Structures are given as C-alpha cells and as structure tokens.
C-alpha cells in the first residue's frame, strides 16, 4: 500500500517570512516581555514564604532578600533589554544587532532563578504550603517574558528544534560601534570594572542556594550579553584602551578586599590569585609554546618548599635561617628555575604525547621524592608526609602580614594582606607574560607551536626557545609558590600531584588554562576562579566534583573548544566564521585585557 509519491520539498516559501514560535502579534510579544519583567521585579517586594528558616529571609514585605535579590536583578535586566527592543533612546547599545537572543536569554535568566527559588522553598521547607501569594505571582510573572520572547518573530525555519536554536543564536555580524569620545570609553571601562567587582564580590560571599541562583543569573546573563555581541564590543573597547583597561582591572582587584568584611573570603581570593597566577605561567608553556606539561604543579611545590625551608619555621631543616621575603621569593623562583632547566633539558627533546607523559612522570617524582625525604627513606630535608608546618607570617618593615590592619576605616585581615601581595605578584606575572609574548622570543614560541619543522627551518633553535619557555613558566610558578607557603602556614607533599579533588594540581591548572582560553591573559584567571569556587561553593558536589568537572570539560570541548575567552588565533582555528579575517588592531598578540575583578 505504500505508494512512493514524489513530494518535492516545498522550497522555503516567501522569502524572509517572519513568525514566532508562539503565534502572537509582535506588539503583544514585546508587551509581555516588558510587563513580565516589571512584574517579576515587583514580585520580589512581596514575601515569598512565611518562615525565616529559608536562607536569606524571604518573608519581609517591601524588602527583597537572599534569592529575591537575584530575581530582582534578572527582572531589571529583562526590563532593560525589553525597553531596548522598543528602541528607547539611550538603550540602543544594548542590542547592537537587534537580534532576539538577548531577549530570550534574559527572560530565561529571570525565569530560571525564580523557579529555582520557588521550587527550593517547596523542597526545603516541605511542600507548597510554604508558598505565599507573592510566590505564585513571582512564578507566573517570570514566565510571561519567556512566552513573550518566544513569540518574537524571526525567520521561519523547518523544525521546532531549529527555531529554538535560532532564538539563542548569535548573529554572524555585529555592526561596528559608533565612534565615541575617549572619555566615554574610559567611563564605560570604569563602570564595567566596578560592575565586575560587585558581581565577583557578591558571588564569592554567596553560599549554597544563593550561589546556585547566582550561577544561574550569571550564566544566562553572560550568554545574553555574548549573543548580543556586547562582549565583542567590550574586547574591542579594551583593545583600544589597553593600558587604561589594565589599570582599571588592577584597581578593581585591589579594591576587592575592601568590599569584604569576613577574612574567609579574602582567603578564597588569595587562593584564586595564586591558582590563576600559576595557570598564567603554565599558559606560557602550553598556550604560547604549545608544550603539554602535565607535571607543572611540581614547580609550585619547589617554590613553596624552598620558601618554607628558609622561612625560619622551627620544623624546617634550616630552622636557623630566616630570609626576608624578597630573598625567599628570589630563592624559590631560582630553585624552580633550576628544576625547570633540569627537567626540561632531557624531556624537551621529545614532542607531543611523549613530552606530556614524561612531564607527568617528573611531576610525580617530585611529590614522591618530597614524601620520602624524611630522614628514614632518604635524606632528612622535607619532613616527609608531615611537611613543614608553622611557617611564620611575612613581615615587611614592621608590617606584619599575620595581623589585621585598619586602612581608611576598613579592616584588612591576614588573608587580605596576602591577597594584596598576590595582586602585586600577579601584576608582575601579567607584565612578564605580555612582554614576553609580544617579542621576538614570543613569536618564536608561537611559530614552534604552529609548525616546529618550519620554525627550525626559519632559523629558530627549537630546543633552546622551548627550554626558555619551560624555565620561565617554572620560575613564575615557583614565585607564586613562595607566597602560597606562607598563606597556608604549612607545606605538605599532597597537593602537588597530577590530579586531585581540589586545586591546585597539574590537571586543574591545565584545565584552568583550557577552560579560560589558551594564549590569553584573562582566560587562566577566569578558569582558575571557576575551578576554585565551584567545588568550594557547591558542597553537595564535593565528592562528585571530579565527575562534574569531567563532564563540564567534555561539554566545553564540544561547544567552545577555544575556551571561554578565546584568543583570536584559537577562535579561527576552530570556527571558520570568516568574520574575523579582517583585522581591527595591529598588535601582534591580542589578549583581551584583564576584565574580571580579582580574577
């Protein structure tokens, strides 16, 4: 009975037929977006539950708390984008390409965070009886913009799946920004730096449910900004005002401890900075020279152990010696340099996978050797598995890093002191990275990465420049290690392994580089912040964090192999978009300047 009738596929009918996934007139769709956004915002002023048992106290009338603040912010952003889609004067820059994706994604952001809150209230307090009328209003109100957004007209597609995809797609071409006065550009950078600092400071303080809500809003909003093309504009902005953007980044980084009242968060901050700085050092080796080093954390260990040995700790083999910090830092960096050359000289003759395996081996040798140098199985140097505890705090000219200090009414605690020291070291490492990459030696690293045979045929001594990259990376890690020894009071062999549940270890360092974006400056810091904060904050994930981490990496490699902050070269390597083939700037390397405050 099956008659094979030729049914020629009707060619996509009238050109540029526009319709929404949900059939509604354009005016209604926009109105839903705007009204829904306003209603969502307003609903946060109502109580969402009757008991203050729920974290953040959502019971107060007229005063949003906890997760409600996130809904409030998401609602406001939805309203802003809705107004921009109406063409309200002064908001046009929010939607340069006038595409639907930012509207859809901001609407989703509000919807997701509201429904997450509503469902957790029911889940944690035991049933929907704990909902107040405000809860219902919020749930419905946050749904409206989503309906409105999906009713926005767009080019007709064959299947629903394609239509949905088109709703979140970034357009191929973002119109070039209008010329703006330099002071406006600088003002914009300043405001963005302040915003980034606020967001980062809020996120680092958030715990449990609040942190998940924070993640929801940040992910959707960033995605919306990305699809609107605002990140492209921002990197263009920082590229034209490079030094100013860098300076603002540092100001924001320095300001971070002043936004914190609890020294615990400064502790997170300093650990992120150490992790990020070491990752940036690894970026020289992996991102620039293309050498896959799987034992990099050993150099952090060398620096930390060296600093511990000369710190004057009574458990150190040389307990009599107490170097001033600058000398300890130099010694640590120098020791790492020596180890870098010793390990690099034999291994760098290998290429690719072989190099990776051998560095992995050397990394493990470091940890095992340190574990055994306890006077029983080897010479008594490192105290074996017990490590070197009670490392005294640093002290500069009578400024003791262990004490709290009051600066302009702000209390700067122990970890905040170290945080500020790490900001200085980060600035140094960033300068080194930028200067090295934009020079003859940096070009030869990239050439080696691109095509080693051609590079040597162009007169580059491959072994020599690779060894320099390796040694420079090791030195920077060693430098960061000297601070980390003091921050953690003690050094033990265990963290300096290939893979573990918590950073830093070689796998996490490499992941921070790959996740953030190879060959960029801000990428490794962003990657480090994510990889440090996520396991720290999502306590429920703790024992499965490696699993989650693996899944996240797979997804990233599938959908964005160039990392979150792509280097122009990498982006072209993975996506033949063609939109980037005409250059905008004349710089040799184009890392977007550091953007995230403290990250």
């Amino acid at each position, binding site marked *: 009975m099956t008659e094979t009738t030729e049914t020629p596929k009707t060619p996509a009918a009238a050109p540029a037929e526009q319709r929404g996934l949900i059939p509604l007139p354009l005016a209604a769709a926009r109105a839903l977006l705007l009204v829904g956004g306003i209603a969502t915002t307003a609903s946060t002023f109502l109580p969402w539950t009757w008991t203050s048992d729920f974290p953040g106290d959502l019971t107060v009338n007229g005063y949003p708390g906890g997760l409600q603040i996130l809904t409030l912010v998401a609602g406001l952003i939805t309203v802003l984008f809705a107004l921009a889609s109406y063409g309200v004067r002064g908001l046009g820059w929010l939607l340069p390409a006038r595409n639907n994706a930012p509207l859809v994604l901001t609407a989703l952001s509000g919807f997701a965070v509201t429904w997450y809150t509503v469902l957790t209230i029911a889940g944690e307090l035991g049933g929907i009886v704990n909902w107040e009328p405000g809860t219902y209003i919020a749930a419905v109100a946050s749904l409206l913009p989503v309906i409105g957004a999906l009713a926005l007209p767009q080019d007709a597609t064959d299947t629903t799946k394609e239509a949905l995809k088109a709703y979140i797609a970034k357009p191929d071409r973002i119109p070039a920004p209008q010329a703006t006065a330099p002071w406006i550009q600088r003002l914009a950078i300043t405001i963005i730096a302040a915003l980034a600092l606020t967001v980062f400071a809020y996120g680092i303080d958030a715990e449990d449910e609040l942190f998940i809500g924070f993640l929801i809003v940040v992910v959707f909003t960033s995605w919306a900004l990305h699809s609107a093309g605002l990140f492209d504009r921002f990197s263009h902005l920082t590229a034209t005002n490079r030094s100013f953007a860098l300076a603002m980044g540092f100001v924001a980084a320095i300001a971070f401890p002043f936004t914190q009242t609890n020294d615990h968060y400064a502790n997170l901050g300093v650990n992120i900075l150490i992790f990020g700085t070491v990752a940036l050092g690894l970026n020289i080796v992996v991102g620039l020279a293309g050498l896959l080093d799987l034992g990099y954390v050993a150099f952090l260990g060398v620096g930390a152990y060296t600093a511990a040995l000369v710190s004057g700790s009574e458990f150190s083999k040389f307990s009599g010696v107490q170097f001033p910090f600058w000398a300890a830092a130099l010694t640590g960096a120098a020791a790492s340099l020596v180890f870098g050359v010793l390990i690099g000289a034999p291994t760098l003759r290998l290429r690719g996978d072989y190099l990776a395996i051998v560095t992995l081996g050397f990394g493990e040798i470091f940890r095992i050797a340190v574990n055994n140098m306890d006077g029983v199985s080897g010479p008594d140097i490192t105290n074996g598995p017990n490590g070197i505890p009670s490392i005294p705090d640093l002290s500069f000219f009578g400024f003791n890093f262990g004490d709290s200090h009051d600066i302009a009414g702000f209390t700067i605690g122990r970890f905040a002191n170290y945080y500020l020291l790490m900001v200085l070291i980060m600035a140094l490492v960033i300068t*080194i990275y930028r*200067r*090295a990459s*934009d*020079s*003859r*030696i*940096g*070009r*030869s690293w*990239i*050439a080696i990465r*691109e*095509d080693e*045979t*051609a*590079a*040597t*045929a*162009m*007169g*580059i*001594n*491959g072994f020599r420049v690779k060894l*320099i990259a390796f040694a*420079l990376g090791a030195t920077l890690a060693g430098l960061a290690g000297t601070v980390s020894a003091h921050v953690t009071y003690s050094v033990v062999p265990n963290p300096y392994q290939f893979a573990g549940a918590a950073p830093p270890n070689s796998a996490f360092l490499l992941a921070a580089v790959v996740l953030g974006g190879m060959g960029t400056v801000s990428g490794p810091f962003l990657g480090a912040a994510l990889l440090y904060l996520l396991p720290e904050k999502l306590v429920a994930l703790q024992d499965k964090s490696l699993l989650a981490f693996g899944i996240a990496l797979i997804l990233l490699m599938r959908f964005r192999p160039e990392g979150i902050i792509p280097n122009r*070269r*990498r982006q*072209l*390597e993975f996506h033949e978009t063609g939109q980037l*083939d*005409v*250059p905008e*700037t*004349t710089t*040799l390397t184009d890392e977007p300047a550091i953007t995230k405050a403290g990250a």
Partner: protein
Amino acid sequence: MRFGGLTAVRSVDFTVNSGEIVGLIGPNGAGKTTFFNCLTGLYVPTEGTVSYKGTVLPPKPHLVTKAGIARTFQNIRLFANMTVLENVLVGRHTRTKEGLWSALLRGPGFKKAEKASEERAMELLEFIGLAHKRDHLARNLPYGEQRKLEIARALASEPGLLLLDEPTAGMNPQETRATEELVFAIRDKGIAVLVIEHDMRFIFNLCDRVAVLVQGEKLVEGTSDVVQADERVVAAYLGEPFEATPEDTQPATEAESTTSTKGEAQ
C-alpha cells in the same frame, strides 16, 4: 641519503655559484625534495657534506639558515595562525638577537630592534606585494599569496642562497609569470636561487643552469639548451627504464650520497 633500504639521493655533487639561478628538475620521486632536506639539515645525510662559502655546514636547520641558506616548502608550511607580518618577523629570527631579558626589560635597544625588524619586514612585504595584507592571518590568504609569503619569510633571513621547492605549483599562468619576475628580482638583489619545478617553460626561461635528478642520481647538468637536447632526460620523464651509467657520478659506489652545495654569494 638512505631511508632503510631505499636510497633516495645518491652521489649528487652539485655547486651553485653566487648570483646564479639554477634549476633542479626530475620526475616525481626523483629525490629533489629529499636533496633540499639534506641541504637544509632537516635530514642528516647518511654520507656526504654540505658546504657554503667554503665552510662545511652542520646538519642543524637553524644553523643552516643562520649561515645563509633559506628555503620554502613544497607543501606550504606557513605559520597559519600568525599574521602575514608576524610570519616575516619570524623569518628574521636569525638576524636579530633580542632575548628574553631585553623583551622583559623593554630597553631602548629592544624597541629599536623591533622597529628595525618591522621596517625590514614591511620592505619585504612591499617587495612581494603583500604589504596591504600585513595584519591578515596567513591561513586566510589565497594560495598564490601564501606561496609568495613563504618566499618573503625565507628572504627575511637575509640568505645568500634561496631554495625554492616548486614555487609555482598550483598557480595559474599569470601567477607563474609573476613568480618568474619575482625570482629575477631576487637574483638582482644578489641572492643565488636553486629552484625545483615541474613547469619546464618556467625552468628554461629562468635558469642559467639546470640539473636533472633521476632516481636519486644526477643525470645531466648544463644550460637549458644542453638539457633540453639531451634525450635521456626525455626518456626519464616518459618513464623509459634508466640504465645507471651517468657520466657525472663519482666512480666510488660506496659513496652513497655526497651532497655538496657551494653557494658563493656576494
């Protein structure tokens, strides 16, 4: 040069004089590229030496380039994700010496050297006609321009002898003509050129001398007329069996590979 049991290049004694354009032709698989690789140190010849301006070169590619022999590749090997200008700047590696320290300290010497390098690179890009594309990524260039860029990159190392491996492969007749002009212009700069090519018209227009390589051995060497007239060359190209009794090879059968090139430039 032997690969296991296969002798790819055998007893080739060959000299390039300064200011000369010499062609190297031969059927596919004759060992022309392998000969280049031996000259530039990418392969270590099983036997034999390469000497340049009277000194024997070590088989290390970067030292060969430093000594003054630069090359291009048969299958283009640009640094695809670097810009046009950066590619040429990498070519200047052996003629500059700013190390890591000067890059980090950024003294006046560093800035001067970078500026000089960039100027020199731009001159070369103007010379080959790619100056307007300085900030394009090499991978985005059309094929013909990629070949040109490879030549510019090689010229950036200020060679006395330039080795071109099939510079017109895949080009249309106009582009081939332009490349011919380019090679003449390079010679006018006082650089000797050794070029491998399958396009006979190109070779015979261009070269002062042509050598024919067949099955790894040098069959004939001489001016275009001599080579064109030689019937063994025609036979070799048409696939006639080749009796290995070329007059130029050395009698010692033990000397498997003697590659000796003297480019006495300047």
